[in-house]
C-alpha cells in the first residue's frame, strides 16, 4: 500500500519560479528513502508538499490515503498531527523547556491528555537513548542529543510517515551516525521514512534514492 502518491505535481512561485515541473513519486509503506539533489533542485519544495505544509500548483497528492487537495486547512492540520512526523535541520526545540516536555509537545495537538503525553515522551526518549536526560533543557545538551530529542518528538505519536530535512546537516559525523542509527531502528520497526539531503553518502546508505534536479525526478 502506498503512503505517498504524487501525480504530475508542479509548484510555481509568483507565476515565474518553477520549483517543481511535474513530479511523479510513489512510496510504499515501510520504505526508507533519500530524496537527494543540489540546493535549488526543488527537494525542499517536495518535502513541504509531501508534508502538507504547502499545496501544489497542479497535480494530485495523496498522503496516507487522503487526497490533500480536497482537505481544508483544519483537516490538513489534523492529518499532520496524526500521520506525519518532522525532523528539521535546526532541531527547533523550545528553549527553557525540558526534553520531556519538548517531546510531549509532539502530541499536543492530538487530543491526548498531558499525563499520557508525558508517559509516551519518556518512552520515546528512552528509545533514542536519552532516557537519563528527561529533565535536561536543550542548552544543556549537545547538538547530537538535541537532534535525538527532535527525532523523539517526531515519533512520539507513532506516525506512519517521518520526514527528515537534512537531519545530520548541523552535526559532526559521530553525532550524525548516532542519529542515522536511530532512523534505521525506526525504519526496521515499520515507520516509512523520507530523508531530504544533498549528502550522497547518506543517500547511498538508504535502500532507495530519489534524485531531483531542476524540479524533476530523474529516472
Amino acid at each position: 500500500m502506498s503512503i505517498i502518491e504524487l501525480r504530475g505535481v508542479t509548484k510555481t512561485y509568483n507565476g515565474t519560479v518553477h520549483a517543481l515541473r511535474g513530479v511523479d513519486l510513489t512510496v510504499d509503506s515501510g520504505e526508507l528513502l533519500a530524496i537527494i539533489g543540489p540546493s535549488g533542485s526543488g527537494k525542499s519544495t517536495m518535502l513541504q508538499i509531501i508534508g502538507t505544509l504547502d499545496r501544489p500548483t497542479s497535480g494530485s497528492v495523496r498522503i496516507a490515503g487522503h487526497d490533500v487537495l480536497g482537505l481544508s486547512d483544519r483537516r490538513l492540520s489534523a492529518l499532520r498531527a496524526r500521520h506525519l512526523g518532522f525532523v528539521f535541520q535546526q532541531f527547533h526545540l523550545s528553549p527553557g523547556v525540558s526534553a520531556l516536555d519538548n517531546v510531549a509537545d509532539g502530541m499536543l495537538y492530538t487530543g491526548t491528555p498531558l499525563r499520557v503525553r508525558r508517559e509516551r515522551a519518556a518512552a520515546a526518549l528512552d528509545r533514542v537513548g536519552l532516557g537519563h536526560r528527561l529533565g535536561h533543557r536543550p542548552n544543556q545538551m549537545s547538538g547530537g542529543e538535541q537532534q535525538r530529542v527532535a527525532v523523539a518528538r517526531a515519533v512520539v505519536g507513532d506516525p506512519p510517515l517521518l520526514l527528515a530535512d537534512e537531519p545530520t546537516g548541523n552535526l559532526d559525523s559521530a553525532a550524525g551516525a548516532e542519529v542515522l542509527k536511530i532512523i534505521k531502528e525506526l525504519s526496521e520497526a515499520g515507520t516509512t521514512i523520507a530523508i531530504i539531503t544533498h549528502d550522497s553518502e547518506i543517500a547511498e546508505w538508504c535502500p532507495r534514492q530519489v534524485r531531483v534536479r531542476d524540479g524533476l525526478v530523474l529516472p
Partner: protein
Amino acid sequence: MRPARLSLRDVLRVGASGLRARPARVILSALGIAIGIATMIAVIGISSSSREQLLRQLDKLGTNMLTVSAGNTVFGEPAKLPRTAVDMVSRIGPVFSAAATGSAPATVRRTSHIDEAVTGGISVQAATTSLLETLEGTVAKGTWLNDATSRQPAVILGAKAAERLGITRTGVRVWMGGRWFTVIGILRPTPLAPEIERSALVGFPVAEEHLGFDGHPTTIYERSAEEAVEAVRDVLPRTVNPENPNEVDVSRPSDALAARAAAAGAFTSLLLGLGAVALLVGGVGVANTMVISVLERRREIGLRRSLGATRGQIRVQFLSESLLLSALGGVAGAVLGALATVGYAMSRDWPPVVPPWAIGGAVAATLVIGTVAGLYPAMRAARLSPTVALTTT
C-alpha cells in the same frame, strides 16, 4: 479527519510557556496595565473609604434630630419663639426629647479687665436641662446643669469655647454679665450642633435674672422616632408658633453630613481619567509586546503548525498569552490599588473600603484589554504560512 480540541489546561500551558521564556519583557509590559488598574482602584477605594467614614459618623450621631430656630417676620425683623415652645414640641407624639437654647445679651471673659468687645466668638446661651440628652452629648469634665445649678451662677463651656478661653478644668471662674460665674463642666464636641461647641451655657432662670435674657428660646432641638421625622417636621412650625408658623425655620443638621458623604462618594473624575489613560497606554504596550513576540517566533509557529496545530489553535495560543499578560498586570494592579487604599485609609483613621464592583470592573477591563491587544497579533500569527515560518532562519 477532525483536529482535536486543546483542553483549557493545555491552552493556558501553551500561553504561559511563551511568557516564561521572556520574563523581563513580561514584567515591563504587565507593569503598564498594573499602574492603570492600581490608579483606578485606589481612586475608587479612597473615595469609598472617605464616604464610609462619614456614613459611620452619621450612623453614630443619628439622623433623627431636627432643630427649630426663629426666622424673620414678614417685615424682615428677627422673630421670636414663644416661651412655651419647648413644652409644645415635647407634646408631639413621636418626639421623645426636646430642649431649647436662648441667646443672652452678654459676653464671657476670663476677667473683667479684658475688653468687652473681645468675645472670642463665644456666645452666651441659656439652656434647658434636657439639652445634653437631646444632643446625645457628653461632658468631658465636671457635670451638666440640673434644676439647682440652673438657678446658680454656674456655667458649662462647649468644647471650642473652653479651648478659646484656655480653660481645661472646672472650678475656674469667668466674668459674665458683670459678675463671676463658676465653670462646673466642659462638653465634648457635638458634631450635629457646632454652635453649642462655641457657647457658654447657663440655666434659663439665672440667665433671666442676671444676664438680661428675655426668656424666649432661639433654637429648639428635638429628637423623634426615626420613621416619624418627616411627619414631625411638617407639624413643627405650627406647634412652635401657632400664630405665625412662617416665622419658624426647621432644619435637619444631619443633612449637611449626608451631603458631604454623597460628595465624597463621587470620585474625582480627573484622577479616574488619568487611570484610564494609563490603562490605555498599558494596553498599547501589551499589543506591542505581542506583535514583537509573533515576529520573533515565526519558527515556533511553523513548528507548531507542522506538529498539527490549526490556524485557530495558533490564534488561541497568542490570545491566551495576551490575556495572561494583561491579567497578570491586572492582578498586580488590583493588589497595589487595594494596598494604597488601605494605607491611605489607615493614615486618616478611616475604615478601608475597596468595593467588590471595582475589583470586578478591573478584572473585566483587563480581560477586554488583553483580548483587544492580542487580537491583531494573534491574527497575524495564524495567517503565517507554515512553510514561510520554517524557512526563516
